[in-house]
C-alpha cells in the first residue's frame, strides 16, 4: 500500500510538471536577478538558518532563558504589595476578582483570604527597584535588569502554560522558541547544538511537576532544530560516547559509510529529514569532543565558584547550569534554555520559597555579572521567569506561620537583561492587590515577539507551512514591546 502511495507522490504528469516548474524557475531567476546577496543564502547546509540574513539588526547574538518552572510567587519576590499585609486575612473583594476563573484547588474554598508576604522589600541600586529579602544577590544587580511586572497568560495549569510560553500554543505539538530561532538563524557553532537545554531540580519542592522533552521539541520543524538536553554526570548527552571497544577510527569509518548510504537514499527520495539526519550524525561526532570540553569546569578558577556559589561545583544544580550557560554563551550556542523546577508553592511558602530562592539567587546574579565583565552581556539576552504567577489570596488555611498561593495567570513578573533591553527599568504595573494589571499589559505572545525581535527576527515573517497553513511562534498575535527596548 505505502509503495503505491509513494509512487503516486512521485508521479507527476506533463501538465503538473510544466505548471509547477515554470513558476519555480521563473521565481528563482527573478530572485537571483533581484537579490545580489544570494551568495549568502545556502540551501545545502542545514546548519544554516532559513533566513539568509536577519530581518532587523540583531541586538542579541544569543539567549539564555532561565525558566522557573512551577510559577514563582511574584508577591514574595519582586512585586511589592504592602497592602496585602494590611489586609491580611480579609477576603479578596469580588470586584477585584471580577470574572477570573479559579483552579479546582481553590474554587471551592470557603473564602479567598488575602495573604501578605512574610518577606520584607527594599529599594535597591540607582534605579531604586524593590526586591524582597529572599533575593539579596539579585538585588545587587537590579541596575542591569529590566523587570516586566505585567506579564499575563491564557493558561491556568502548568502543562498548558509552559507549553504556551515555550511554543506559543497551549496544545502540544508546535516547535519550541529555541527551535524556531535555530530554524531561522542557524547555528554559530558547528560543534554544539544551536538549542541546548539544562535542567535542575528545586530544593524547595524536589518532587514537583515534571517536565517533558516535547517542551524543547522541534514540532513540525526539521528535527535538527530540537533542543538537546545536557545532563549532569559522565554522559551529558545520552548515547553520545563510543561504546567500549569502538575506537575513534572505526567510528569515523562507520559514519562515513553511513553518510554515503544516507546520501544515496536522499538522492532517491529527496526527504529533507535525511539531510537533517546526516548533519545530526556529523554533529554528534564533533560533539564527542566539544561536549566534554564544554562541560568540564575544572579549568574554572576558584573565584568563579565563589561568585556562582558553592552549588556550582555540584553537577546538575541550577548554579552549575548557570556556569555551563556562560560557557555555552562563550562558545556561541544560540539558545541556552535552563529549567529550574519546584516553584509550585500551593502551601508552605515559608518552608519552600526561601530554598527555591537560594537555589537561583546567587547564580542568576553571578551569571549577569560574569557575562558583563566578559563583554558578553551587551550581545546576550538573559530572560528570567515562569509560566504564570501566584494568587494574592491564600490557598488552604491561612495562619500566622504559613500560607500558600494558587496559580494566577492574570499577572506575574519576569525580568530580562542584556542585549537591547533597558537596564534598571520597570515596565507595567499591577493593582494594590497584585491581582490585576493596571498599566502596560504584556501577553506571552508579546514576550515571544520581543525575544525574536532582539535576535533580528520579525515574528510575523518567520513561518513554516504545515497542514495547509503557515505557522509561526506567535500564532496570529504578538507585538514587540517597544518601550523596554534601548
Amino acid at each position, binding site marked *: 500500500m505505502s509503495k503505491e502511495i509513494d509512487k503516486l507522490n512521485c508521479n507527476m504528469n506533463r501538465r503538473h510538471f510544466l505548471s509547477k516548474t515554470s513558476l519555480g524557475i521563473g521565481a528563482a531567476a527573478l530572485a537571483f536577478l533581484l537579490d545580489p546577496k544570494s551568495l549568502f543564502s545556502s540551501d545545502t547546509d542545514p546548519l544554516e538558518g532559513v533566513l539568509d540574513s*536577519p530581518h532587523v539588526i540583531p541586538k542579541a547574538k544569543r539567549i539564555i532563558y532561565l525558566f522557573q518552572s512551577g510559577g514563582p510567587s511574584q508577591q514574595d519576590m519582586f512585586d511589592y504589595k504592602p497592602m496585602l499585609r494590611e489586609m491580611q486575612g480579609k477576603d479578596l473583594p469580588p470586584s477585584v476578582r471580577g470574572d477570573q476563573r479559579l483552579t479546582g484547588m481553590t474554587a471551592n474554598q470557603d473564602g479567598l483570604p488575602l495573604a501578605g508576604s512574610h518577606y520584607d522589600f527594599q529599594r535597591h541600586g540607582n534605579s531604586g527597584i524593590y526586591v524582597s529579602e529572599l533575593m539579596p544577590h539579585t538585588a545587587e544587580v537590579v541596575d542591569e535588569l529590566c523587570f516586566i511586572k505585567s506579564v499575563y497568560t491564557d493558561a491556568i495549569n502548568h502543562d498548558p502554560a509552559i507549553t504556551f510560553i515555550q511554543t506559543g500554543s497551549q496544545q502540544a505539538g508546535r516547535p519550541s522558541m529555541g527551535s524556531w530561532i535555530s530554524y531561522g538563524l542557524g547555528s554559530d557553532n558547528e560543534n554544539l547544538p544551536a538549542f541546548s537545554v539544562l535542567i535542575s531540580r528545586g530544593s524547595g519542592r524536589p518532587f514537583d511537576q515534571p517536565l517533558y522533552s516535547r517542551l524543547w521539541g522541534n514540532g513540525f520543524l526539521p528535527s535538527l532544530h530540537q533542543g538537546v538536553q545536557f545532563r549532569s554526570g559522565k554522559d551529558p548527552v545520552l548515547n553520545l560516547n563510543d561504546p567500549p571497544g569502538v575506537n575513534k577510527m572505526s567510528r569515523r569509518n562507520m559514519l562515513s559509510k553511513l553518510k554515503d548510504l544516507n546520501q544515496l537514499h536522499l538522492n532517491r527520495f529527496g526527504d529533507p529529514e535525511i539531510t537533517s539526519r546526516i548533519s545530526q550524525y556529523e554533529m554528534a561526532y564533533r560533539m564527542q569532543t566539544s561536549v566534554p570540553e564544554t562541560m568540564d569546569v575544572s579549568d574554572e578558577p576558584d573565584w568563579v565558584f565563589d561568585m556562582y556559589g558553592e552549588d556550582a561545583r555540584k553537577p546538575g544544580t541550577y548554579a552549575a547550569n548557570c556556569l555551563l550557560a556562560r560557557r555555552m554563551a562563550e562558545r556561541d550556542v544560540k539558545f541556552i534554555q535552563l529549567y529550574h523546577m519546584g516553584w509550585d508553592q500551593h502551601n508552605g511558602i515559608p518552608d519552600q520559597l526561601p530554598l527555591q530562592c537560594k537555589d537561583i539567587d546567587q547564580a542568576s546574579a553571578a551569571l549577569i555579572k560574569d557575562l558583563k565583565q566578559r563583554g558578553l552581556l551587551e550581545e546576550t539576552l538573559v530572560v528570567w521567569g515562569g509560566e504564570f504567577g501566584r494568587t494574592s489570596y491564600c490557598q488552604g488555611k491561612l495562619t500566622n506561620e504559613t500560607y500558600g498561593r494558587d496559580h494566577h495567570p492574570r499577572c506575574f513578573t519576569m525580568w530580562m537583561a542584556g542585549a537591547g533591553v533597558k537596564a534598571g527599568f520597570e515596565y507595567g504595573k499591577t493593582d494594590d492587590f497584585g491581582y490585576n494589571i493596571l498599566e502596560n499589559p504584556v501577553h506571552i505572545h508579546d514576550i515571544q515577539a520581543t525575544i525574536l525581535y532582539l535576535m533580528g527576527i520579525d515574528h510575523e515573517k518567520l513561518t513554516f507551512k504545515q497542514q495547509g497553513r503557515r505557522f509561526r511562534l506567535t500564532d496570529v498575535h504578538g507585538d514587540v514591546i517597544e518601550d523596554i527596548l534601548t
Partner: protein
Amino acid sequence: MLRNSCLIGLFFILAADSQAEVLSPAVVFAVSALLQPAVAGESSDLILFIGRFHPLLVHLPIGFLLLAFLLECFGRLERFQEAGLENAVPFSLLSGGISAIGAVLTGYLLSLDGGYGEDLLSTHMWLGITVAVLSLSAFILRTRFFDRPKIRTMYEGILLLMVACLMAAGHYGGSLTHGSDYLTRHMPEPLRSVAGLPPKRKKGIKKIEDLDSAQVFTDVIHPILDTRCVTCHNPEKKKGELLLTSYDELMKGGENGPVLQAGSADSSNLVYRLLLPEADDDHMPPEGKLQLTGDQIDLIAWWIDQGAPIKRKISELEVPKHISEALNKLTVKGTPFLAGTNVPGADSTVVNQLRSRGIEISLIVRDKNFLQVKYPESADSVYLKQLLPLSQQVVWLDLAKTTVEDSSLAVLTAFKNLTRLNLEHTKIGDPGLKALNTLKQLKYLNLYKTEVSDTGLKYLAENPRLESLYVWQTKITPRGVEELQQQLSDLYVDTGWGKAGTVLSEKDSNAVGR
C-alpha cells in the same frame, strides 16, 4: 436587447425633458434645502455625507466612458465585426453620462466642505461638468435619429474630446486628494531629470549635526510638521483652512482660530488634537494616516510651552530630561550607524574564499551589505590582509582567542566602518591600539585578558563614538580609566564586577584563582 435598452434610455431622457417644468422646482427645492446651511458658512452633515460618495461614484463614469471609447474603436476592427461590439456603445455612453452627472453633483457637495486649493478645484469641476455634457451629447448623436456622415464625424470628435477631458479631470481629482506631486514623487532618477523635476528629497527627517546650535523651530518642529501634517495642510488641500507649511501660517491658525497658544501647550488645540485617542473624530492625523510618535508630540508640546519661538536655539531654552533624550535621538550621533547608511555589496569570490578557510562571514541585516566576521579560534595565524577587500563592509569583527598580533592590526586602519571589535584573550598590547584610532565609528571594544596598559588606553581618546570598553584582567589601572573617561564622557569602562575603580589585574586574578 441592447437596442431595447438604448430606447429605454432615450425614453427616459425625453420623458425627463417633457416633465422638466414639473421636475425642476422640486430639484431646486431639494438642492436649496441641502445647501441652506452652506450659505451660513458651514456645510451640514447631510451635504458632507452625500458629498463623500464622490470618490466612490467618480470611478463609474471613468469606467463606462472608457469602455464606450474602447468598444467604438475595437468595433471597427474586422476581427470584432461579428461580435457586434458597437451595439453596446450607446448603452455605455448613457450609463457613463448618468453616473457622470451623479459624480458632478456629489463632487460639488463635497467641495462645499472646503479645504481644497481653489484653482485646482475649479479646473477639476469644469472638466467634470464638460465630461458629463459631452458624454450625453455623444449618446444623443449616436442614436439612429442622427445617422448622417457629417454628424458621425462630429460624434467622433466629441468622443475623443470627452476621453481627453475625462483623463484630465481624473488627474486633477487625484491631485486634489493626494497632492499634485503624487504621481512623480517616486519617479526614478533618469526619468526625473528628463521630466525636469528637482532631485528627490531625502526620505524622513534630516539629522541634526550639533544639538546646541540647532534652531528649535527650523530643525526640530518644522520637520515633524513637514513629514506628518503638510500632506493635508498645504496650499492645495487646505484642510480646515489650516496651513502648516510655515511658521506664520501655523501661528495664523485655521477655520477655528489659532491652533496654539504660545506658552501653554495644555490650552493649545494642536496638542489637544494630537493627544486625543486615535479613534476620535477630532484626532489628528486622521485614523489611518502616519501618526506622530510620543517623542514628537512631547517635542511640540515642549516647544509651545517655551513660548513657541521661531528663532531660538535649543541651547537657549530650558530642556527637561525626557526632552533632551528625545532631542538626542534626532542627532547624527543618536542615530544607529547601521540603520542610517549602506555600502556597496561585497565581492562574492572574496567572501567564498575566506569562508573556505573557516572564517565565518554573514550579513548583519537584510537590505544592507554590512558584514560580521569571526575568525575561528583554531586559526594558526590571522592574516587580516585577506579581509582588506571587505574593508568597507565589515562592521563587526571578532578576533577573540585568536593568535592575532599587534603588527597585524595595522590593516584595520582601512576598516572605517567598524563598530564592534572583539580582541579578548589575545596577545594584543599597546602598539596594537594605536592602529585603532582611525576607527571613528567604533562603539564596542573588548580587550578583556589582553596585554594592554594605560599607555595604550590613551590612543582610544581618538575614537569619539566609543561607548563600551572591556578591560578586565589587563594591566590597566583606575587612573588610566579615569583619564580616558575625562576625554570621552559617555564611555562605559568595565573593569570587572563589584570592584568599581579597582582593576583586577592578571596577577590578582591569579591570586584569587588557582
